[in-house]
């Protein structure tokens, strides 16, 4: 009796759909990406357990305060007195601005308190104290 060898069908992985899959991934990343706009100052953020995300990423004004008490708003070094006028300008441009305050954990509270007072005067009332998730790493 002869056993017929099974006809070896050409075993190929279909690759035609790879491009489509990659396109989908690409579109996902394109929509999700928000380019980091600002360099900022080097700060060590304090850790916190109640850390939450900010939903609207595109309406954020970043304010950095380093351990020396220097203030930086969206990559501009700003002297203490000018914070109100600059923040007013930002609020006119976009009334829904959220301020993300990235202050160094060893900064003096006085500087932060003064800044909060100025934010109030500029009507920038939605503030987010940037923190690290407990046990988190970077910056």
């Amino acid at each position: 009796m002869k056993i017929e060898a099974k006809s070896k069908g050409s075993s190929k992985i279909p690759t035609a759909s790879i491009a489509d899959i990659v396109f989908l991934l690409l579109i996902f990343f394109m929509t999700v990406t928000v380019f980091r706009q600002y360099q900022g100052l080097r700060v060590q953020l304090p850790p916190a357990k109640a850390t939450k995300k900010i939903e609207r990423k595109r309406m954020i004004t970043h304010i950095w305060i380093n351990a020396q008490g220097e203030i930086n708003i969206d990559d501009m070094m700003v002297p203490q007195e000018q914070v109100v006028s600059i923040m007013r300008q930002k609020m006119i441009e976009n009334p829904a601005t959220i301020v993300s305050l990235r202050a160094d954990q060893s900064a003096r509270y006085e500087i932060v308190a003064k800044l909060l007072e100025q934010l109030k005067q500029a009507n920038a009332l939605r503030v987010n104290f940037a923190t690290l998730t407990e046990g988190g790493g970077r910056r």
Partner: protein
Amino acid sequence: MALEIKKKQHLQKQAEIPTASLADIVFLLLIFFLVTTSMNPDKGLGLTLPPPGEEIKLSKENILSVYVNSKGEILVGEQVISLDQLKMKVKERVRQNPKLVVSLITDINAKYKYMIDALDEIKLAFDELKKENPEFKERISLATPAF
């Protein structure tokens, strides 16, 4: 003559755009976006400040003052407590009086970290209360030091 024309038509049909490299191009783009995407978004403790000039009078029973001094010690009411106890204390007091406003008063010479530590505990307390009963409202106020 007729045969030649037929041949030419046949050749024209073969014109195709090469799509083999499309996937490679898209892959490159994908890698670019993968690399540039910052996957750690802005995170932190959110707070809404009161509008300027608006002073709401609160009766004393409705305020829980939390003091943080320059060494990071915490005083609630008349008691010095540790950071771990703060959450329990806030929860206990807010349960007794749901209208309670937690006022965080920090020494201007204190480190920013101490203030965030205390704020974190207060936030956690409110988060846990909200889980039990969504009707609890978060009322936190940052006291303004006189300059």
